[in-house]
């Protein structure tokens, strides 16, 4: 009895802690959303409810073009990056020598932790030397590039958890290399592919530092635009826009959850016991 109470108490503290953490994380976002409906025009005092700022956002064609640009870049770059990352992860997985594998992984990780500013500046220099005009292409290429390592990191654990006996069995049963890839490996690592894709998507949506260097010729993305507007104090239409984008990302997360829950259930069910057995502990 006494013991149980202690356990409960511990959980209570943990829950309070969790609630606090989420409060800290979400409070600024809700604060911003709240003031996007303020007719007063400032973030100090709430005067009355209005949808003016939402109307302003929709009426501002230049801003809408920039929002669409941002979405297009995010979707395209994360798709391309995920495809390349799948190939890359397979290649890294197949490297026999432990040392070479670790080196490749470290090189991949260095790209994740290296500062965006440096990556952005290097891209700017590269593109101008190669002669790629700054704009859509340069932004897309750099977003693909910085998304690949992230997607690789998300996919690789699933490959490592996959039991080698599975592919061997498939081979023994007469599967071609192609069949092994499309019918065994890809379904098993599917959750990794999707999480890689969504990680890449969010990275691309909010990247400022790299994008800042490689935008040009009238082509801009949201992060860059908001930053230069912030110089004159962020207007509430930016709040409205941020609210819309926040809702959009929530939808994405729900979509991701749905994909993982419903459709991939059979694959996960087969994969998990095997994976458990295959993980060296």
């Amino acid at each position, binding site marked *: 009895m006494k013991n149980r109470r202690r356990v409960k108490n511990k959980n209570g503290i943990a829950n309070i802690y969790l609630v606090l953490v989420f409060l800290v994380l979400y409070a600024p976002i809700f604060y911003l959303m709240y003031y996007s409906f303020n007719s007063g025009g400032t973030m100090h005092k709430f005067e009355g409810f209005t949808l003016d700022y939402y109307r302003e956002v929709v009426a501002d064609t230049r801003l809408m*073009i920039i929002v669409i640009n941002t979405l297009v870049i995010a979707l*395209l770059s994360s798709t391309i990056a995920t495809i390349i990352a799948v190939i890359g992860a397979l290649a890294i997985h197949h490297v026999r020598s432990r040392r070479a594998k670790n080196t490749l992984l470290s090189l991949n990780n260095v790209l994740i932790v290296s500062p965006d500013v440096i990556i952005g500046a290097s891209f700017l220099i590269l593109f101008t030397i190669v002669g790629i005009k700054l704009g859509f292409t340069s932004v897309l290429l750099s977003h693909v590039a910085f998304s690949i390592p992230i997607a690789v990191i998300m996919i690789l654990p699933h490959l490592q958890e996959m039991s080698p006996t599975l592919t061997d069995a498939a081979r023994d049963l007469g599967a071609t290399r192609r069949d092994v890839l499309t019918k065994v490996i890809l379904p098993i690592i599917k959750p990794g592919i999707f999480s890689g894709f969504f990680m890449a998507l969010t990275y691309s949506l909010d990247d400022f530092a790299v994008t800042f260097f490689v935008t*040009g010729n*009238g082509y801009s993305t949201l992060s860059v635009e908001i930053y230069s*507007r*912030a110089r004159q*104090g962020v207007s509430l239409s930016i709040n409205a826009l941020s609210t819309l984008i926040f809702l959009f990302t929530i939808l994405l997360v729900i979509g991701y959850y749905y994909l993982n829950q419903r459709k991939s259930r059979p694959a996960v069910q087969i994969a998990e016991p095997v994976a458990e057995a295959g993980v060296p502990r």
Partner: protein
Amino acid sequence: MKQLVNTFLAILIVAFGLMFLASRLNSAQGYSGGNTLTIYNWGDYIDPDLLKQFQEETGITVIYQTFDSNEAMLTKVEQGGTVFDVVVPSDYAIAKMREEKLLLPLDHSKLPNLANIGSKFMNLSFDPGNKYSVPYFWGTVGIIFNPEMTKGMDFSSWNSLWDKRLNNNIFLVDGAREVMGMALNSLHYSVNDRNEEHLQEALAKLNKLSPNVKAIVGDEIKMLLANEEAAVGIVWSGDASEIMDENDKLDYVVPEEGSNIWFDNMVIPRGAANIEGAHQFINFMLRPDVAAQNTEYVGYSTPNVPGLKLLPEDISGDERFYPPAEITGRLEVYDNLGKRMLAHYNELFLMFKMNKK
């Protein structure tokens, strides 16, 4: 596998659909037409109606891009890769761009409205003879203060900042030249002083200011001051006018020891595609009615003399933004100090920042 392929195909279809939508919007705006002019300006530094008006009058479509610092703009222009037809840098950036041969000379015969610019704003040290640049806005560096929170203190001298009553009550803008210049001015030296002893003296004096300094901040200084987070701030006059729009209790003063006077100017960078259009645009911005409208929108001080006369008396007669001759006489433009001296200024400023507890 099938699900993977289907999902990614769906994503690609959505992406291309959006792309199509964007190109439709672009052509509806006329951005993809032939006769375009790309302008690279500070964020929110022009009345958007004027761009529309220019478009209607000349048929030239304006592509408008923004930057947030001279350094960011310089990087973009230096590296090339993008085409800009008109850029609006500040004085020291112009000196630097001129040295690095990043500017095209202006054809003065295409700029008849240049005559509207007051003579004291022409032929300045960063561009003798206005070969490359035309003034857009100008302003000063000064003290913005909240009379309610400072209770009758007088800020007509920089030295008033060292008053003990201002403990932890001053915001400084995060600029090496501005803060060092302020300290040098308070010692009656020039903002362009290169004398090592004077500079060390300025640093020592700044260190004594530390207890009064609440924070050294960037552009958020405007919001902080408008919200009365501190009583006093060192800001550019343009920022000051914006802060005072938000919170009319505040007041701005240019100290009598002198201060910096700065200029933002229109230039045509090397690599411009539409040089004819760029001249047309510059000439358009120099028109008195346009300059007046723009001044009212932006709130900085205009160098356009007939334009200033078109403005209401409460703007043109405001001595805080159009100071009388005895003060303007003591204002100095920042010289291009050269790489090494500038690095030294930055280093001294950094030492001050690190010292501050």
